[in-house]
């Protein structure tokens, strides 16, 4: 899949950096530059490594170079009535598929159809010694060797430079409907979202903000008609705009100066006892918090409930951004980092201080 001329240049840059032990800052569209710890190192620009390499609608598989803009991929898929079912956030026009996978970012549909990582079938990467590696493939089922492809998802470029990715894609549902129920507290909203998810309904997104519960359903016309008839709530007219604003962190909730936390919790976990404003998504699995409560307090509360917290805006980006790992798991991380990047040149410290 990888084309030599485009790849050779990146490979040379990584090889050179490996020889000289020069830290690299991998970037493409720069839309996620704010995410994670402060980036340092010499820029390795992969944005030129762009283009869809193959797309077979009947196989539900698309392979694209890492620097391909998300908008480009989404347009190609939509021409065939298909989509990236993890509904990736863009967080800027220049967002690329590589950055999306490196951060494992998924949008409103995530808990109902799967995450970016779930749809990743294979990839080519350069490890920290500039070895060109191919993991996984372009088939749905492949259990040969360790799943190093999915290991790349969410590793924030600290284990390898993504060159191209193969993704499973899905048909786009033809119809959708968002129902709004008003005047609901967070605890009740969590129960409702999960009760509905436990029924055989085509739920495709859920959110709670400002006392309103939003539920999106997607499917055939007859299915949507049945949902409308049987479930409570008012149809939301501008639903496209609503879910886009949630996905892109552009809803009014995200305005203002207070630090923004992304909190992952078991779906039915109670609300952590932290003063601040909350927006709940993913049936409770992703919750956004605006609060200037101390980081230690937030992390402790969230950990006690089985979750983890990351600070997205307003934190000290030279300190830890993501939830600290348990000692045993942290050790495995360091050993894996060395297995892929012995000189620690790939996005060092971007994820954790010691990676």
């Amino acid at each position, binding site marked *: 899949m990888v084309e030599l001329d485009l790849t050779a240049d990146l490979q040379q840059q990584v090889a050179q950096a490996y020889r000289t032990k020069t830290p690299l800052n991998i970037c493409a569209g720069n839309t996620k530059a704010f995410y994670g710890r402060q980036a340092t190192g010499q820029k390795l620009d992969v944005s030129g490594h762009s283009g869809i390499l193959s797309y077979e609608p009947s196989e539900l598989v698309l392979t694209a170079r890492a620097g391909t803009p998300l908008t480009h991929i989404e347009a190609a898929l939509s021409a065939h009535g298909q989509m990236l079912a993890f509904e990736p956030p863009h967080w800027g026009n220049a967002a690329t598929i590589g950055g999306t996978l490196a951060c494992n970012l998924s949008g409103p549909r995530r808990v109902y159809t*799967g995450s970016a990582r779930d749809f990743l079938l294979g990839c080519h990467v350069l490890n920290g010694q500039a070895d060109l590696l191919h993991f996984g493939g372009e088939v749905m089922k492949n*259990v040969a060797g360790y799943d190093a492809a*999915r290991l790349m998802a969410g590793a924030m470029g600290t284990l390898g430079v993504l060159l191209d990715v193969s993704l499973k894609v899905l048909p786009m549902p033809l119809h959708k409907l968002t129902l709004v129920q008003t005047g609901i507290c967070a605890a009740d909203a969590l*129960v409702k979202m999960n009760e509905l998810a*436990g029924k055989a309904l085509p739920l495709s997104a859920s959110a709670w903000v400002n006392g309103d519960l939003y539920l999106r359903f997607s499917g055939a016309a007859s*299915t949507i008609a049945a949902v409308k008839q049987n479930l409570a709530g008012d149809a939301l007219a501008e639903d496209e705009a609503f879910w886009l604003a949630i996905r892109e962190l552009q809803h009014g909730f995200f305005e203002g100066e207070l630090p923004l936390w992304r909190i992952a919790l078991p779906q039915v976990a109670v609300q952590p006892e932290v003063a601040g404003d909350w927006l709940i998504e993913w049936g409770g699995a992703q919750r956004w918090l605006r609060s200037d409560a101390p980081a230690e307090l937030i992390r402790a509360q969230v950990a006690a409930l089985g979750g983890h917290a*990351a600070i997205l805006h307003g934190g000290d980006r030279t300190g830890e951004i993501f939830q600290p790992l348990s000692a045993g798991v942290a050790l495995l991380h360091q050993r894996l980092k060395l*297995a892929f990047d012995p000189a620690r040149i790939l996005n060092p410290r971007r994820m954790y201080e010691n990676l």
Partner: protein
Amino acid sequence: MFNYDPHPVASISKADLVTQLLALLPRDCVLFEAEDLGPYECDGLSAYRQLPWVTVLPHTVAQVQAVMRLCYQHQLPVVARGAGTGLSGGALPHPNGVLLSLAKLKSILSVDVLGRTARVQPGVRNLAISQAVAAHGLYYAPDPSSQIACTIGGNVAENSGGVHCLKYGLTVHNILQIKIVSVDGELLTIGSEAFDSAGYDLLALMTGSEGMLGVIVEITVRLLPVPEQAQVVLAAFDDVAQAATAVADIITAGIIPAGLEMMDKLAINAAEDYAHAGYPRDAEAILLCELDGMREDVADQIMRVQAILTRVGATEVRLAADEAARALLWKGRKSAFPAVGRLSPDYYCMDGTIPRRHLPVVLRRIAELSAQYGLAVANVFHAGDGNLHPLILYDANKEGELEQVEAFGGKILELCVEVGGSITGEHGVGMEKINQMCVQFDALALTQFHAIKYAFDPKGLLNPGKAVPTLHRCAEFGAMHVHRGQVPFPELERF
């Protein structure tokens, strides 16, 4: 550095090991006499057999940790085992090692109905999970055909799939968190009960790692609501290529069936003799297409699927009229392996994946190979996701026939790689496909796999010799992956 060649000599006598194990475990949890070890000499791939040195069957996670610490101290190989239904020799014992059975860790620890998760021990059988939560209208989606017997721990270790994984995903898509005991006996939590976890996706890495990276001692699975309705359509074709076209057309039309299975003529007839499912015996291929979801959705999709099947040229399109008819159509498919097994003394089940569009050419090549080797093949196919199960018929008592079968099987797997697929879709590499790993992966990728192994298990004690071949072995096997004209394994002398 990465040397997992079988540990030739044990550092402790068997008598001493048994004494030390008996200090950790109740008497009946340590097996060391040949007659007690017999049941553990192979997994579902019975062509490969090896008695373990000792088998242990701990009851608790603390006992698993104690056993692992002891083995680590004496540098003894450990092979984890669930139900032993694996089809690639993954649980094949090590002659100087401990076989660690997780079969006694079989409690369902908790079920969260509202949150739709269950926390279970590794020895719980796959089907037992769905049975335990059925009263709540929930089930665990991945459904390997071996689901009555296989364990969830084995499923995670193999990343098992089933008939329904086209729509509902593999094991990796249906678990949230696992607990593992590391090679040195430490208990670690991987993943989280939230939908993601901080740090690297170690959950994905552990899933399908075939007992090479750690011992899985607890799993939190996701549960799904039982669909309101499921219906199945059978379609018969005169030509396998037409059946393949129908599959592509259904998916291109935006329909993701819950199951989409294909069988060829030999498999159809074997299944019909066995299950009397009413399959058309003269068809070259049949498709079983199951649609599930809300009643309205199913009705809509059934109509569209029937139209596509007819347009593509099906000689018969039959909708199961009721639940009994649906169950009967599936019974034929689900008993296809034992049914084919009645056609000859032995059969060998292959497991390759291909991009679906290459199906006609791959089936043609398999037929050619079948003629060349003089061995019949029945094809059963998870058509929706491109996972082939050619079943090669043979007689193990005939001198040299097993070797012929292995050679034939190896050719089929190499063919899968050639058309852009994989040597295994769900059964794993184990001992069986270790040579074909050299065909699918180049030396750099294999070296990276060894480095991953080293990060978890620097002494190479967990399931040694399986899943990832040494470069040395690949060089001996001779079927090296030539990557863009580069000489393969230039770094061989390093090892």
